Structures are given as structure tokens and as C-alpha cells.
């Protein structure tokens, strides 16, 4: 059996089935939806950080762009939700294109510039002067298109596609080229990788993923404020989840979300400051003692982690 198919059967299929079937036995659909959102975002971070080596500290910018692209085309153009989702994805891709020059920066510089870019987009969207267009800081209400069952299903489909994308990168020449860029861009170029094209493609793919799930998020929750969908927590959580499990694998980010977001929901809601404390200590310990994530524990023993 080819490796890609084995990975799909081992990871993508069970996760997708679980996400699709759990609402029938578990009543808190919002919680499950949040898990689906973070599973998708963590894989999106995996594409650009895990495989390509750019730390997207402002990843939430794409999520917010998707959410606003969706909402504004529903409000102003009265589009059907699925078509509006396309506009959300387009908005994220356009933002991605606008930010491609940032890919020239390396390491910490890219991370900081990306964070600044996401905050700049948030400032523009929530500016009271633009209330006519974006509703400014007063938030969006989409009660007309509220369809929790359908939007949940679409979110699961997007998650499955994103997991499929990670399987493809894990097992293809393109994924290998991205990892070569991450290790050493100049050597990769010497070896015949078109560095600029490959990294731009990876960047736009991860923007697309975040834009789509951001659009579905807006559709599912249907009432939100700009600081909900531009909350830096989305970027940070997605990065830490991916890192905790182990990037450049398909399983790592999934494990990270299931474990850490599970802990968050167990203790984070009632006592956020204690969760924040544990979470911070966990991140520090992770970087110092296990910089390659949980997956590296298995890899060290010679087990091939999907």
C-alpha cells in the first residue's frame, strides 16, 4: 500500500469520521466545531511553518479576512452562504498575495512583520470610520443565514481537505521541496527547487485554508465582533498546538489539538489565568526539552509517524 494512502487511512479517515459522527452522540456541537476549527488552523500553520519554515505569528489575519469576506458579501451582496465562502477564501488569498513580499524576510523578522500585518488589518476593519462598510467595532450579525448543521458539515469537509493537503505534502516531491527550503533556501535553489514559487504557493495554500475555515466560523457563530475573529489567540493556539504534536507530520498537529485544546476546555474556561500559567510553562518546557514535539518521541525509536 502506498505511504500516502496508508497515512490517509490512519489519520484523515478516523479524524473526519469522528468529527462527522460525534454530534449524533454528544450534544455540545459548538465545542466540537471549535475542535474542527483548530484542527484545520493547526494544519494550515503546519503547511507554512512545519514544512516551509516561516513562523506565521499573524496567521489569524487570514482567518479574520475569511470571516469578513464571508460576512460582508452576505450583508451587502446578499450572496448564498456557499458562494460567500468563496469570497471569504478569495479575501484571504488576496491578503496573502499582498503579504508575499514579507516572505523575503527570514526568521524572527518574518514572524514580527506578519504579526504587525494582522494587527494592521484588524485596525482597519474595526475602525469606526468604516462603520458603513465593515460595521466597524460594533460587530456582525448574520442571523439570516444561520444554519448550524450545514455549516458544521462544511467545516468538517474543509478540515478533511486540509488533512488531505498535509498528507500530500508529507508524501510528495512538492512537500520535500518545501522542507528543503526550510532547511536551507540557497541549497534548495541550487538543487533545482524554484524557491520563490514554492514558498509563495505554500503561503497561499495556508492562507486559503485559514480563509475558508474563517468564513465557516462566521457562518456557524453568525454573531461576532472584530476582536473575536482577529484575536491573536487563534494564531498562537494554532502554532503551539502544531508545535506540541510535532510539525511536518500529519499526526502531530492533530495530537496537539486533541491534547492541549482538550486541557483548555477542561480547565481554561472556568479559571483562564491558571490555564494561562500552565500553558505558558508547558510552552517553555516544550521549547527547551522537546523542540520537535511529541512526534519526535516516536521517531527517536525508529517509528514512522504519519
Amino acid at each position, binding site marked *: 500500500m502506498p505511504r500516502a494512502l496508508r497515512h490517509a487511512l490512519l489519520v484523515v479517515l478516523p479524524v473526519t469520521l469522528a468529527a462527522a459522527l460525534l454530534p449524533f452522540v454528544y450534544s455540545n456541537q459548538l465545542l466540537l466545531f471549535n475542535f474542527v476549527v483548530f484542527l484545520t488552523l493547526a494544519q494550515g500553520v503546519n503547511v507554512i511553518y512545519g514544512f516551509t519554515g516561516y*513562523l506565521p505569528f499573524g496567521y489569524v489575519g487570514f482567518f479574520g479576512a475569511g470571516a469578513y469576506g464571508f460576512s460582508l458579501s452576505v450583508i451587502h451582496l446578499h450572496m448564498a452562504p456557499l458562494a460567500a465562502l468563496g469570497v471569504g477564501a478569495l479575501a484571504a488569498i488576496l491578503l496573502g498575495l499582498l503579504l508575499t513580499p514579507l516572505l523575503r*524576510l527570514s526568521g524572527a523578522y518574518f514572524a514580527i512583520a506578519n504579526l504587525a500585518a494582522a494587527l494592521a488589518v484588524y485596525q482597519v476593519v474595526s475602525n469606526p470610520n468604516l462603520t458603513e462598510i465593515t460595521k466597524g467595532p460594533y460587530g456582525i450579525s448574520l442571523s439570516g443565514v444561520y444554519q448550524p448543521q450545514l455549516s458544521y458539515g462544511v467545516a468538517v469537509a474543509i478540515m478533511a481537505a486540509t488533512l488531505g493537503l498535509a498528507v500530500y505534502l508529507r508524501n510528495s516531491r512538492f512537500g520535500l521541496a518545501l522542507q528543503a527550503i526550510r532547511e536551507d533556501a540557497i541549497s534548495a535553489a541550487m538543487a533545482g527547487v524554484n524557491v520563490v514559487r514554492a514558498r509563495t504557493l505554500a503561503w497561499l495554500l495556508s492562507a486559503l485554508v485559514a480563509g475558508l475555515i474563517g468564513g465557516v466560523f462566521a457562518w456557524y457563530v453568525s454573531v461576532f465582533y472584530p476582536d473575536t475573529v482577529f484575536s491573536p489567540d487563534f494564531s498562537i493556539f494554532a502554532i503551539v498546538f502544531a508545535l506540541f504534536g510535532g510539525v511536518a507530520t500529519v499526526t502531530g498537529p492533530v495530537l496537539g489539538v486533541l491534547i492541549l485544546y482538550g486541557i483548555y476546555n477542561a480547565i481554561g474556561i472556568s479559571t483562564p489565568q491558571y490555564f494561562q500559567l500552565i500553558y*505558558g510553562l508547558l510552552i517553555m518546557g516544550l521549547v527547551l526539552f522537546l523542540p520537535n514535539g511529541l512526534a519526535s518521541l516516536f521517531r527517536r525509536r525508529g517509528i514512522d509517524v504519519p
Partner: protein
Amino acid sequence: MLGYALLAGLVFGLYFGLVGLGLNLVFGVMRIVNLAHGDFLMLGAFGAFWLFGIAHVNPIVTAFLALPVFIALGFPLYYLVVPRLLRAKDPEMLSIILFFGMSQVIEALATIGFGPSERSIPGRVLGSGPVSLFGQSLPSAWMVSGVASGLAVLGVYLYLYRTRLGYLTRAVMVHREEALATGIDVHKVSAIAFGVGLALAAIAGVFAPFMLGSATPAMGVDLNIQSFAVIVVGSLGNPLGTVLGGIVYGVSLMFMQTYFSSWANLLPYLLLILILLVRPSGLLGRQVRLA
């Protein structure tokens, strides 16, 4: 209007120079990004608030106290995380995540200790009434904070350029391995620089209630971005370039607030991106672009 914006901009510029200075010193010496910088600033602000609340300690006294306290805090913190971090494959990138974790820990502890509400100290503690200068009148708390920031910057200049320790520190900045080969105790020099960096953040924090209005445990994130904008404009890795960056930032902030007030919040982000893309090295040349 113009004169006021210019003068207030200079005062704020000196202050923002101090805000960024510690971050840049740490980056310059260790090549790591202290994303918890803003949270040490917050600790300084809460220290000032707390001492003022229990014993009416003047914030200027607190600023002097902050120096030894935070240097002493920086020492163990340095040996706890930095040497291990520098052995990793990509310390610059990993440091962002590590210090993000540290900032979460500090923010959580501050929330547990002080509660999440906003705190402020009345401005009259630093002198009453406005001060007139070149025909413009500014609150005296601003003037005192600006002068104190200038003195702190001067102190850093003397430390770096007029002491033997500063000489060694600059050697580590130029080339860590060569400094080690010359027989410099790199870890000790770095640990002191780390402590001084934290202390500078705390001193800036002491004046934050006057310059920024109030202090909350969650203020660190915003301050980090502003500090980055300041030090990137100046130049990464050159602590004294930060002062120039601070003044550019302060003056442009005041002009934005005077003439386009509703868009002033955008300034730090746009300035940061613009400088990184157009002139990523600031004043001091260091390669930050790869392909």
C-alpha cells in the same frame, strides 16, 4: 499645533526609546527575541503602582529600585533558559515561542496577584501643573518621564562605552564565538546584559501609567509591537540606534494623533512593515533577507 506635536513627539520619543532599549540590548547581545519584554514593562508598572499604594513611594524612587531588583531577577532567568536555548538548531525562531510562553506565565501570575483591572497613578505625583517650554505647555508628568528616559539612555551609553564590562559586552555583540575564544566569560556578560535589559523594561514600565494612561496585566502584547517598531526603525542589534527610532516613532505618532487621530493606531504596524521591507537593517547593516 505643529510646535506642540513636535515637542510632545520628542518627549514621547525619548520615552519610546527607553521602551525599546532593553529589548534591543537583549537582541544585540544574545540574538534572541524577548517576546516577554512588554510583560516585564507591565511588572514595572505594577511594582510602581503597588509601592505607591502601600507606602506612597514616589515612582522615581521605584525606578531606582527596579534596577537592582530586575538585574537580580534576570540572572537566574538567564541561566535557566538562555544557554539551553542557544544550543538549539534555530535559537532566534525558538526564542520567540519560548518567551511567548514566559510572557503567558508572567501575565497569568500578574492576573492572579493583582486582578485583571486597569490601574493608574495620579499624574500630580510627578509634579503639579503644566510645564512651559518653547511656548508650549506639557503636563509635568510627561516632562519628568521624558527626562528620566533620557537619563536612563545616558546610563546605558556610559555602561556600554565607558566601562570595561561594556567593552566586553560590545565584543560579545560583534561576535559571540570570537569573544569566547578571546577568553571572555560570555555567559556572565550576557547574563548581566539580560538583567539590564529587563531592568530597562521595568523602568520604562514605572513611567507607563503616566505616558500610556493606565496599566493592565494584558498590556504587554501591544507594547511588544511598539517596541519592535521602535527598534526596527532604529536598527536591530544597535542599542543606541533605538533612541533615534524612538524619536522617529514618537514624533510620527504625535503628528498622526494631531492630524489623523482615528488612524493613529495603525502607525506602529505600518511603520514596522514598511521599514522591514524597504530598509530592513535600520542604521546598522545586518543581513536579514535571504532569498
